[in-house]
């Protein structure tokens, strides 16, 4: 009996379409969110993340509609976020069909938001997203989609966030994002050994070996990727088979 390592495809959504950016800049259309969600649900994804990367005021209604359409396709957990500022934003996302809400910029600005969300919806519904860049021997969180430096330390921030109520950490390496150079295993190991909650590794996934490394060396509980799944470079089923053959606990679809 083992807790499986999760494989999580991520849909970055802008104006109702899935897009893919490279190092947080430049966008390419990757398709309809609901059809991609349906495909991943069938292929054996363990969870799905949907992020509103436009996060503009007028885009909010469109995003909630996207969550509804995506949730309709799933019988696995759904995490949604992007531009969540208040408890009411969080409630709207959960009411639209997400199981968890992810926050980043607003939690840095007002960490109390994490406690409020956890008290209302439970820690298991609150995912803190941390986007980091390496800075010597440590990592610095950035907000606003990688644009603003915070001056904080990623490990310290993760520990504080968990103390305040975050139930999971979604950890993205900005340095690796979209570069296909592999996960930053040193980063995930550092954070996973610091916090008592699951850590989802993100940024840089390219090969099957990268996933194997982030679960073993990196000690990640889950791994998230976007483009390699969208472009069908890898199917989730073959990735899981590869991992199972190497002794990594995964849920194999039947």
């Amino acid at each position, binding site marked *: 009996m083992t*807790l499986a390592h999760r494989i999580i495809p991520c849909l970055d959504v802008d104006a109702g379409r899935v897009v893919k950016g490279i190092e947080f800049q430049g966008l390419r259309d990757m398709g309809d969110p609901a059809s991609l969600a349906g495909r991943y649900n069938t292929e054996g994804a363990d969870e799905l993340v949907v992020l509103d990367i436009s996060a503009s005021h007028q885009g909010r209604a469109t995003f909630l509609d996207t969550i509804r359409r995506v949730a309709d396709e799933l*019988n*696995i*957990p759904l995490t949604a976020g992007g531009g969540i500022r208040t408890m009411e934003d969080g409630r709207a996302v959960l009411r639209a069909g997400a*199981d968890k809400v992810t926050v980043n910029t607003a939690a840095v600005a007002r960490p109390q938001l994490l406690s409020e969300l956890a008290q*209302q919806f439970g820690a298991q*519904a609150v995912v803190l997203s941390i986007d980091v860049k390496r800075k010597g021997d440590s990592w610095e969180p950035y907000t606003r989609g990688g644009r603003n430096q915070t001056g904080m330390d990623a490990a310290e921030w993760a520990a504080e966030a968990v103390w305040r109520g975050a139930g999971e950490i979604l950890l993205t390496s900005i340095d690796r994002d979209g570069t296909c150079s592999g996960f930053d295993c040193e980063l995930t190991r550092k954070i996973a050994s610091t916090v008592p909650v699951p850590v989802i590794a993100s940024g840089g996934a390219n090969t099957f070996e990268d996933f194997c490394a982030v679960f073993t060396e990196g000690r990640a509980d889950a791994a998230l990727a976007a483009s390699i799944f969208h472009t069908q470079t890898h199917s989730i089923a073959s990735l899981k088979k590869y991992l199972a053959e190497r002794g990594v606990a995964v*849920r194999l679809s039947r």
Partner: protein
Amino acid sequence: MKIAIVDYGAGNLPSVERALRKLGAETERAVAGEQLACAKAIVLPGVGHFGAFVNGLRQRNLTPPLRAAFESGKPILGICLGLQAMFASSEEAPGESGLAFFPEEVRALPTHVKSPHIGWNQLRRLHASKLLRGIADDAYFYFAHSYAALASAPYTVAACDHGFPFAAVIECHNLAAVQFHPEKSGETGAQMLRNFVESVP
């Protein structure tokens, strides 16, 4: 045949509703006791905080009709926090009373394991189970919780281990309860829900 889904004012009601409807079940969101009295079966879903949950039930006067349904032998399925609410109390909300269908206290997961216990885990079968009929012994289910009932709780038919062995599936006369989320557990979870729906007379 109508299944009442208890709407206590929060939680993951839409996904449970969607999963049951996909199986062809007719469902109704129950906010009043009369709806529970009329239904053929009751589903008690729940996420969040034990205290908020039992208070939500109490404020809507749903506690007495739930107890009446239990005593009348009506099938009831508790999911996640819905399982925990069937116990007398929880370490999550000291002083708050649960439905007390079972006398034990729900415990916090220990600190030497990651908590919340989030993700897909397998079960250890202890007794024959109606809910798990037709489901492979090594199948995975999706869990997301920080508290659990000890597996030593009577009527535990399947356990899971995370820090301590806890009750993953409970079956006792007309009561059924699962700590995982069948509505989020893929085809395996759908099969479990189908077993419940088909068990309703």
